[in-house]
């Protein structure tokens, strides 16, 4: 099976550049604006889009993404509406890879088999589920692979060489290397340290390795893109979105543009990177 993710990374490899991966929360600040934001991401240079599934208890997220989830929940966002958003997005963009990222409970409650069928038909390409380590692969990872979706795993600074094979075993699409031990929105990682970690993981897999957590600026995105196959930016985009809202947390005329402009600047950073020789 080849997903849009596989196709996109194959193209990027030919172009000889790293991927720019963006994260925003589905339904933030409202479903309609959120759809416009997702469309703007791909138009402004995002190579892969991660879309957060709102959850009340995001244990691995910092204050910015916690607040984004709560904004989305407040206006009635659900997992079902998140899939609707993906379906609407696919009407105008059938090539940009889209990955849902979140926590397991909403999916478990939706029903795993029904979720996988609905996600696939909506146009989702992959899943990143923070609280499903390889020890719980029977829950969703194996069924997702069977349903033709990529299951993208997080590798972290605490994932040592002994554990890496287990983490990589059922991973597909790409590997998401979390550059620091911590939550989203925390301090940035040093690009050289990240480079060593990427090299270490590359010894165990041929999959592309994207790096996220703590990347906020075009310069940082570029520095990471020189060491890895992709830079992931989330909190900075969510903050740009939030700063464009009115006092009640509602979208303004500036909201979509605020995210689009930062996306374009970050994409330029990533595209300016000199890729390390393979």
């Amino acid at each position, binding site marked *: 099976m080849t997903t849009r993710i596989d196709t996109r990374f194959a193209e990027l490899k030919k172009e000889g550049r790293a991927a720019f991966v963006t994260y925003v929360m589905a339904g933030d600040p409202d479903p309609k604006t959120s759809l416009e934001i997702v469309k703007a991401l791909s138009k402004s240079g995002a190579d892969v889009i991660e879309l957060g599934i709102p*959850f009340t208890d995001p244990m*691995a997220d*910092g204050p910015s993404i916690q607040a984004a989830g709560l904004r989305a929940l407040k206006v009635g966002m659900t997992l079902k509406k998140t899939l609707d958003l993906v379906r609407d997005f696919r009407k105008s963009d059938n090539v940009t890879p889209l990955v849902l990222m979140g926590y397991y409970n909403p999916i478990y*409650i*939706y029903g795993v088999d029904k979720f996988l069928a609905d996600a696939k038909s909506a146009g989702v390409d992959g899943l990143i589920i923070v609280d499903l380590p390889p020890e719980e692969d029977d829950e969703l990872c194996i069924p997702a692979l069977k349903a033709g979706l990529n299951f993208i795993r997080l590798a972290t600074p605490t994932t040592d060489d002994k554990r890496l094979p287990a983490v990589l075993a059922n991973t597909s699409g790409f590997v998401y290397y979390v550059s620091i*031990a911590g939550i989203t929105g925390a301090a940035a990682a040093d690009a050289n340290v990240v480079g060593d970690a990427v090299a270490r993981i590359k010894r165990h897999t041929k999959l592309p390795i994207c790096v996220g957590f703590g990347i906020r600026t075009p310069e940082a995105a570029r520095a990471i893109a020189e060491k890895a196959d992709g830079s992931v930016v989330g909190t900075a985009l969510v903050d740009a979105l939030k700063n464009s809202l009115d006092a009640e947390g509602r979208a303004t005329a500036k909201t979509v543009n605020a995210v689009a402009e930062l996306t374009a600047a970050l994409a330029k950073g990533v595209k300016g990177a000199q890729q390390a020789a393979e």
Partner: protein
Amino acid sequence: MNIAKPNSYRSGPDERGHFGIFGGRFVAETLMPLILDLEKAYTAAKADPAFQAEMNGYLKNYVGRPSPLYFAERLTEHLGGAKIYLKREELNHTGSHKVNNVLGQIMLARRMGKKRIIAETGAGQHGVATATLCARFGLECVVYMGAVDVERQQPNVIRMEMLGATVVPVQSGTRTLKDAMNEALRDWVTNVHNTFYCIGTVAGPHPYPTLVRDFQSIIGNETKTQMQEIEGRLPDSLVACIGGGSNAMGLFHPFLDDPSVEIFGVEAAGHGLTQLHAASIAGGRPGVLHGNRTYLLMDADGQIQDAHSISAGLDYPGIGPEHSWLHEVGRVNYLSATDDEALAAFQLLSKLEGIIPALEPAHAIAKVMELAPKRPKDHLMVVNLSGRGDKDVPQVGDILRGKK
């Protein structure tokens, strides 16, 4: 639900931390290596007689165990049925059963060379116990506590600070125990290299539900011996309140394979089961939160709902996974008591026995008030008096004087 009866109710969990479909290890990858280390360290400690001997020394001379099994004569007379015994966990150093577990985990942390301890707390009893043992062993201690709970359990906040702990009021989400646990997990992910997470109840990712249960089982084991000495036989029933379920599991577990013993867990029904409450078994269904699959209060989209209880220690939208399993296999009966019932029980026990209970075990007493009169006079009923009410005196005082 139709589930085959197991040969033993005491053999769980399996090697992946499952009690039936419940339990498991639903955590971020960053934490996974640590959880595996903890499991290894715990298995080694359990097999090491020196570990048990050291624990026993502190349990006796620092905690003050064994705690008495006390015949509540006036409560028994008043209710006119079963003979009621109180397992006096409120007499432990720090005032509740929480210290049994904390001692065990701090010993483990020391063996693992961890110098920084974090904990979540609701009523503050687990936080106080953790702050106490950190003071005793010279460890850094950070306690996460929902801002709402910081407000309603002030005496414990002051105690923790006096003991040298840093109390962090948690402003996210519903600002109660569930959010304190989220925040503790976020701290742990960030400080994995030097930090030990001391969980306060039989919940969280495997192996926590098991190790907390094992450390708390001293309650049930002592009860068994003491009842044998006093009455020459097993008790007929056990009653305990349930927040996450650690004091209940500690009392119940040693008796699970004694079929003559009826077992009752009491959840917090808050304003009533049709309104805001914290009774996950009565009002919830299986879901995944805080590292394990268990009964949770949530909406149709799988979003976790606000719990409510007058008692900060029971104000949690989940329950330990082994309880969920014991419910489904039908070994334990899960009941619930409202805020008002707990308040009435709080006053009754204070006036009849001269023991001011914490609001948490007041929920257990509330159900004893219903169960005991329906049982014969030779029925032996044990209720776990999991903590003392000092921390609740200001809050209950305000309520009784009509201030809140």
